[in-house]
């Protein structure tokens, strides 16, 4: 009952005309940027962060919610019409979606993805609204050791699930943690890894790293192989609307996708990639027309899209209640919160209920707006896809530098953006995942703080981490998750040599 009251109160905040306008602008901008090829939701949020810089916290977070959902929707449009998924979570969508578009069923593919995202977003946001207060109750009793162990779990799952080599994932993560050490230590005031450069005292900005790795890195990468794979837009032919049969074949995958996406997103289990592929393979098995898979089965779009959106809402559960980002997008959202001096966690629910519940309510509104806005505007988004590649990437670089300059106009910051961009290019080239680095940068300092707090309480005795059942269990999970892939690959190698 409390939850319903809080949620109703949230709606009174979010339904104010000015907040609705922010939400609308957010959804519009998010979709417009997210639809551009090569730009995933994480980058959309990072690029648009400076736009919300001057708004009040509530307004900017509500705009953020719109940008987040808009960016996700835009990403699936690109995946379907260009067969160019902007992030690993829309890989599964691209499989069937682009086939549908080639067969002249791009309209229904986009429609099932929009409506599926809406259904999933709605259910998952309800889940968020009811799960969050409960988790807050639990989190209030968490000690610093529990938080530390939880962050270690997030570290491991994030770096082991992104990309296909745990070694490269961990390398990316550790580079991020190293960058997180840069700056003044919050507990003692000791300057670390600043090498006498005053601009480094404040540490490395998450947005600078994210925009550098994702945007500048991507521009370098695409430029370096531009002769190889020209992208082709598949024009939308035929009706935009789903037929009766499409509806019949879509509704169950939407619900199943949601059932995969929300719990996996809400666990610190590393993003939306796993549920989308789980949903894809489930739909393939359950489908009445298995022969259509690989040729454009609507179930293969409906399920993964719902899973993707539901897990996006799911990642907000640990983010809001524990302050724990489990994806690159969530890491950048957390940076957005910190920009206003807000620290997500159980305290935020107690101190700023207006803001938290307003944000949750605006997620519902953003979802509704997405459907209303996007079905009629599909023509506009398709035209955005047709921007020539040179102008597109030149524009992306212009907006990246603009964002960096707006937040912090120093040449040192620009040089870091450039350096991170080149690093991002090299990492893409040798297949290192970049998301763990962003998560490491923001989560590293938080984990350090919790660890040191725990050790202060125990007067320096590290056994405190293993003596508490909560943290001991979590560390055990982290250990298993870390070792399992190496053991498995060892077994595989063994098998392979036996053959």
């Amino acid at each position, binding site marked *: 009952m409390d939850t319903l009251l809080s949620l109703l109160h949230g709606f009174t905040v979010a339904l104010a005309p000015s907040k609705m306008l922010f939400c609308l602008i957010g959804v519009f901008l998010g979709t417009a940027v997210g639809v551009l090829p090569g730009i995933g939701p994480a980058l959309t949020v990072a690029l648009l962060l400076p*736009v919300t*810089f*001057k708004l009040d916290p509530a307004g900017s977070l509500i705009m953020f919610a719109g940008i987040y959902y808009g960016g996700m929707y835009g990403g699936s449009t690109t995946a379907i019409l260009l067969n160019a998924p902007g992030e690993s979570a829309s890989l599964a969508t691209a499989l069937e979606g682009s086939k549908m578009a080639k067969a002249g069923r791009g309209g229904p593919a986009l429609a099932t993805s929009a409506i599926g995202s809406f259904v999933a977003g709605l259910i998952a946001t309800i889940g968020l609204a009811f799960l969050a207060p409960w988790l807050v109750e639990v989190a209030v009793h968490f000690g610093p050791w529990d938080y530390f162990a939880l962050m270690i779990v997030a570290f491991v799952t994030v770096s082991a699930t992104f990309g296909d080599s745990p*070694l490269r994932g*961990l*390398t990316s993560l*550790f*580079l991020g*943690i*190293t960058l997180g*050490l840069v700056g003044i*230590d919050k*507990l*003692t*005031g*000791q300057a*670390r*890894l600043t*090498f006498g450069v005053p601009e480094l005292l404040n540490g490395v900005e998450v947005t600078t790293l994210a925009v550098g790795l994702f945007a*500048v890195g991507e*521009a*370098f990468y*695409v*430029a*370096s*192989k*531009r*002769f*190889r794979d020209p992208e082709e837009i598949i024009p939308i032919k035929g009706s935009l609307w789903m037929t009766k049969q499409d509806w019949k074949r879509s509704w169950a995958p939407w619900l199943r996708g949601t059932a995969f996406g929300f719990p996996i997103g809400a666990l610190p289990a590393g993003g939306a990639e796993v549920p989308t592929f789980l949903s894809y393979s489930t739909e393939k098995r359950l489908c009445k027309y298995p022969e259509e898979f690989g040729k454009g089965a609507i179930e293969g779009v409906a399920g993964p899209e719902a899973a993707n959106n539901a897990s996006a809402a799911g990642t907000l559960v640990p983010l809001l209640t524990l302050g724990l980002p489990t994806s690159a997008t969530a890491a950048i959202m957390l940076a957005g919160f910190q920009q206003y001096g807000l620290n997500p966690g159980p305290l935020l629910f107690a101190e700023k209920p207006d803001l938290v519940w307003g944000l949750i309510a605006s997620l519902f509104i953003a979802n509704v707006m997405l459907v209303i806005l996007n079905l009629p505007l599909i023509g506009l988004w398709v035209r955005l896809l047709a921007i*020539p*590649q*040179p*102008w597109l*990437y*030149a*524009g992306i*670089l*212009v907006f990246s*530098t*603009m964002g960096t*300059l*707006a937040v912090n*106009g120093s*040449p040192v910051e*620009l040089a870091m953006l*450039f350096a991170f*961009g*080149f690093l991002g*290019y090299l990492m893409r*080239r*040798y*297949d290192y995942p970049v998301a763990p680095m962003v998560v490491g940068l923001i989560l590293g300092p938080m984990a*350090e703080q919790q*660890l*040191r*707090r725990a*050790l*202060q309480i125990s*007067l*320096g005795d590290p056994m405190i981490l293993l003596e508490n059942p909560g943290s001991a269990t979590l560390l055990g999970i982290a250990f298993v998750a870390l070792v399992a892939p190496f053991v498995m690959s060892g077994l595989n190698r063994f098998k392979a040599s036996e053959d």
Partner: protein
Amino acid sequence: MTNETRKAAANKPALIVGVLLLIVAALVGHDASQQTITSTYGVGPTAVPYVVAAGLVILGLAHFVVAFREGLPAPEEADSKALLWIAGGLAFLIACIALGGGFVIAIAALFACTARGMGRRALLIDAAIGFVLGLVIFLVFAKLLTLILPSGPLERLFL
């Protein structure tokens, strides 16, 4: 061709990454050893850097192992000219901002260089597009968001 040599010798990129990781680890460790402030109880600001440095050493050594096994995935051939154009544009941008040349000119150059790197052959037209784009962004930030981007002589005309 590369496949044959890879079997015989170590995978060079993996070796380089391993060495770089060891260098970063050394930097982190050295920096921690130079720190002067300590905590009176609990652990001080040097503890975590040492742990991170140790982790980097392990990862670096693991890369050496990988170098003699499967190696890193072999990348496609890169178009270095394209990379140089974009890098040049970014370098010009940084220099222009650092020396007070202003936002609009810097953006115009970046836009033109990037478009050139991505295969367009109309440097002047692209520079003009970039110029207009930069000017619009500058004015939107200055008038609507009351945020002044780095200004040179040109930008001051509009303020």
